[in-house]
């Protein structure tokens, strides 16, 4: 079976192919993800992203139980999992993606066991996640709890794109990790997907949700990574919206970009529609995905020039 991915990197189109048997062990990755979902642990975790020389790091407190995680730092605490999220603060905002459809792990992913290792003095073992023959991700799995105590996601050139590591770890959670119900969940309902690509560079369009005020959230996943593309008619002044602009060019097109410890945001205006993409996908995937969506075109470039000159 031939698996081909097309990568667009700085204008150069590279074809990477693997000919041979379907990568085995795709099922084992799904199994491990399920185990990791059920793991019980808590602690502190450092998360960081390195991209184009920029680095963004954060430390979060985490408690993880039955597929739910309470994550946060400072005043920003939220309990997330299974399609629900609730802010544990006075705003009490809560979202629920009911009946969210599941997508199968893309066949490009395979997993192979790495050797035994140690993390924070605890026995662990390594899981290597391959994608079409190259190492995409490495997970250090705590032996007794199956928790992912460290992860590294690699860019195409082998450098580390995103990493996480538990810096404090315990296999129990606090007694008060509970779902309170002070505020009703805002139910997110899926709507039809008009005009969006069903398949973007290996990511399947899973659902489109109606955002307030006429925007839409299109959720894409390849079973491992995922992203949401938010669209709205009109034009958004992204430069003003983001404090500090990070230029980002793909294939001659200009986008705005925000690099966060655990995710990327990429925004742009296409003629008539404004886009914001939020996700945890690696940069080469991102470039291939952006190729599938309407481009900023000259429109975006002109507005930027205008703002630079007169803004």
């Amino acid at each position, binding site marked *: 079976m031939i698996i081909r991915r097309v990568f667009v990197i700085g204008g150069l189109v590279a074809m990477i192919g693997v000919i041979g048997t379907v990568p085995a062990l795709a099922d084992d990755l799904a199994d491990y993800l399920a185990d990791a979902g059920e793991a019980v642990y808590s602690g502190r975790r450092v998360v960081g992203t390195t991209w184009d020389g920029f680095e963004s790091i954060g430390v979060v407190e985490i408690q993880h139980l039955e597929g739910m995680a*309470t994550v*946060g730092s*400072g005043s920003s605490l939220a309990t997330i999992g299974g399609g629900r999220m609730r802010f544990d603060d006075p705003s009490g905002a809560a979202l629920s993606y009911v009946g969210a459809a599941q997508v199968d792990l893309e066949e490009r992913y395979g997993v192979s066991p790495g050797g035994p290792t140690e993390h924070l003095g605890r026995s662990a073992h390594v899981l290597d996640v391959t994608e079409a023959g190259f190492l995409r991700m490495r997970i250090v799995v705590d032996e007794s709890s199956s928790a992912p105590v460290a992860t590294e996601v690699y860019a195409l050139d082998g450098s580390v794109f995103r990493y996480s590591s538990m810096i404090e770890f315990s296999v129990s959670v606090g007694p008060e990790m509970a779902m309170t119900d002070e505020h009703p969940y805002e139910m997110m*309902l899926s*709507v039809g997907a008009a005009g969006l690509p069903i398949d973007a560079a290996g990511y399947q369009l899973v659902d489109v949700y109606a955002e*307030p005020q006429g925007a839409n959230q299109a959720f894409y996943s390849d079973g491992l990574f995922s992203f949401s593309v938010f669209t709205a008619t009109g034009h958004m002044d992204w430069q003003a919206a983001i404090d500090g602009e990070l230029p980002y060019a793909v294939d001659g097109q200009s986008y705005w970009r925000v690099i966060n410890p655990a995710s990327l945001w990429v925004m742009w205006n296409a003629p008539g529609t404004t886009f914001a993409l939020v996700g945890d996908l690696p940069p080469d995937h991102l470039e291939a995905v952006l190729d599938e969506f309407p481009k900023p075109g000259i429109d975006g470039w002109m507005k930027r020039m205008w703002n630079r000159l007169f803004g």
Partner: protein
Amino acid sequence: MADLIFDPDVHGELFSAYLDGQLTPAEVIVVSELLDGSGEAIQEFLALRRVRTSLRLLPEFEVPAALLPDGHLGDRLSAYLDGELVTIEHRRVTKHLVDCSDCRAELQELDRARIAVRSLPGVDTTVTEEIAATPPLHHGRRRIVAGGLGAAAAAALLVGLAVGGGSDPAFVLEDLATHHVARASAEPGFAVLPAAFEVSAP
């Protein structure tokens, strides 16, 4: 043309089928001949016709309204929440929910009741079916004191501005991140890909 002798056991059935318009042309000829000749045949025929008419004139009742769909979702909501509806039905229910605030409210209530039934280790709770009907229990929360991202970084999280001519899209940047993370938490990858509260750190 041989004379047919009317035999009620044999020919009666033909009369019934004749009345129902279910005879072959050949059989119709037989019936006509029988009715032509025999008074007994005619009696039988008329009697059958009377029975059939009585049946056909039986009043047709209206279905009690409660049995018909009222346009709302009723017990499909439970199945919807459980992910049990197949795609076509799922899409129809979702479409209805988008338009119908009554059903949305009912969905929220149903969902709320289901959440309240979760029980977690260490919490002294008796979970019964009755929880669905009573106000949810409140548990204390431990304050988690975290280091790391400070106030300055938090302040960098801006609300999106709709600026410029033409239609004003309203993106709230904060919402983009939370909506994505909330949805992504339903994915298996959520277990290994770290979620964090995103603060822009340009």
